[in-house]
């Protein structure tokens, strides 16, 4: 039994099931991120934890208490909304203490709690203003203050950073992470931004089409994605997925991949069990940062393969230069050092770290190796 258990939970509207048998259990102090494209059901799941949507079947438990049918205010949770949902007619101070007031906390205690939170978030000077007079970042802080002041068991965040500009978003991300580390609270956080998911979470649930595709630590998710959806959704630029055929050469399973001119190159697998797929088609997943020039190849890797392919486009991005080529009829992106000598139209020899490569079954799109 965890701190928050989502036990075989489904959600249907009429005959349409939109969430299918979700099973997630997290411990106290964990930071769970629900990530996925819009419409994947992540917000619905969050709302079900909050009690804003009914649970069609299964159970949600917080601290072993079944929450099904319990009113949101009785679940000891707090929520930060995408739009912040600050009450426009109340001052910041009233916004923060409204929840305490509704729960019957006496005024002096409310004032005290409000001061503490305001101090923590450095918004003391805003307490007498109306939300309309605040900037986006300030509103964000107030919204967090409103959640914090309640000292809830679980914090729920519904895409809290998506309305901020890029710079502020990064700052607030760090802020949230700091708060989590400082306070050790349990957080469920919904976002569609995989970087937020990776940077903030202790665990990630990647969702799509109403299913949890994969639940795991950020590293698990990144290195061993359960399927092509997870593989391409997490990471930027996305993982390259190219058609390949397995061929055992000299007892070693190799991935044969077509290059720009139709000639094939053989990239050796690190996993011997790929020999089982001899002669069959697979999809080969290679992350952009594992395709480099020779000098930048991972020295710890035991399986660096080389291939020469033609560069189509180069995109210098300051810290890195992205190179696009064609493999298996698809665009493949490589992430090179910024000082790499790459020119569009030229042939170039790439080093591929096959230790990190992932193979998928083209029929089920599930990972078969590693």
């Amino acid at each position, binding site marked *: 039994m965890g701190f928050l258990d989502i036990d075989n939970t489904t959600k249907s509207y009429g005959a349409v099931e939109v969430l299918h048998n979700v099973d997630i259990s997290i411990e106290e102090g964990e930071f769970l991120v629900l990530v996925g494209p819009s419409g994947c059901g992540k917000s619905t799941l969050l709302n079900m934890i909050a009690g804003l949507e009914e649970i069609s079947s299964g159970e949600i438990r917080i601290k072993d208490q079944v929450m099904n*049918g*319990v*009113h949101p205010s009785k679940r000891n949770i707090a929520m930060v909304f995408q739009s912040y949902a600050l009450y426009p007619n109340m001052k910041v101070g009233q916004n923060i203490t409204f929840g305490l007031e509704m729960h019957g906390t006496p005024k002096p205690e409310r004032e005290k709690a409000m001061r503490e939170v305001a101090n923590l978030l450095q918004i003391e000077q805003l307490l007498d203003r109306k939300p309309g007079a605040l900037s986006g970042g300030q509103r964000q802080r107030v919204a967090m203050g409103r959640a914090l002041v309640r000292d809830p068991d679980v914090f729920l965040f519904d895409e809290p950073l998506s309305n901020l500009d890029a710079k502020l978003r990064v700052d607030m991300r760090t802020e949230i992470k700091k708060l989590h580390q400082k306070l050790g609270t349990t957080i469920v956080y919904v976002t569609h931004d995989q970087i937020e998911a990776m940077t903030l979470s202790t665990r990630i649930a990647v969702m799509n089409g109403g299913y949890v595709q994969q639940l795991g630590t950020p590293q698990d998710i990144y290195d061993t994605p359960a399927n092509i959806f997870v593989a391409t959704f997490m990471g930027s630029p996305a993982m390259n997925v190219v058609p390949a055929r397995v061929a055992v050469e000299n007892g070693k399973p190799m991935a044969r991949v077509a290059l720009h001119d139709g000639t094939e190159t053989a990239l050796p697998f690190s996993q011997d069990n790929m020999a089982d797929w001899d002669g069959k088609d697979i999809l080969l997943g290679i992350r952009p940062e594992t395709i480099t020039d020779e000098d930048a190849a991972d020295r710890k890797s035991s399986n660096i393969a080389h291939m020469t392919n033609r560069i189509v486009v180069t995109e210098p991005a300051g810290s890195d230069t992205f190179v696009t080529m064609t493999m298996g009829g698809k665009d493949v992106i490589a992430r090179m050092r910024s000082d790499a000598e790459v020119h569009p139209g030229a042939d170039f020899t790439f080093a591929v770290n096959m230790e990190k490569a992932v193979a998928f079954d083209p029929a089920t799109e599930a990972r078969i190796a590693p």
Partner: protein
Amino acid sequence: MAQAANADFKTRLQTWLPKLVLSPSLAMVLIFVYGFIAFSVYLSFTDSRLLPSFGWVGWENYSKLWRLSHWETSITNMGIFALLYIGICTVLGLSLAIFLDQKIRAEGFIRTVYLYPMALSFIVTGTAWKWFLDPGIGLENVMQSWGWTSFEFDWIKNRDFAIYTVVLAAVWQTSGFVMAMFLAGLRGIDNEILKAAQMDGASNWNLYRRIIIPQLRPAFLSAFVILSHLAIKTFDLVIALTGGGPGRATELPATFMYSYTFSRNQMGIGAASATIMLMTIAAIMIPYLYAELREKK
């Protein structure tokens, strides 16, 4: 344990409260609107005269109704009236709103002047209107006394034109309100779109025709609902202005129904005319409501 049960009850109450809150209104509407409509439809098949009575006569009231030339007049009048009233109010309201939206000085004052007729009932303004339209003492007389001796304005006395004076007074009352609705719509349009269109070289005329007016669709729809409901209910106006005359030339279904139900003690025929009116309203409004509400879902 007791506390848990209590909390449970509270939560359950919270889930029922919305429906509980809605239910008095719903009950009122069901009884006082739909119940009464059903009652009225039932009466149209009975021999009710002075008071409701329950002797079943089948379609007799309907066949009598359609034999009355008077009923045909009121239906025709309704068609003319509704068409002109809704059309003129919409065009006039939109035009005035556009004019008033050009950074006009004293806009607030002018707006109030345009809007105030909506505040007055025809019990209040009926006599003034009657005077104004009366050739003997009204506009015609005034114009002639000012030297325009050939001026003629005797519509209210003319069987073929009297209905247009009813339209005139009705337009006077409501067009300002429609203007306010369109003005509100105009004020809600994003200014950046207008700037963009101007950079594209659109003239003012094209700006309104192609960009602004199409964006006023919600205002058009609201105006249509309000105007059509007012048109159907038009009653006081006719009573105050013409009393249905000259002859029966300005009789409308609402006045027809009232006169058969209450003045003529032929409640059955009155109810039959009410039923036909309601069905007409339903035929127009239900598709509209259906489209509107489904869209918003």
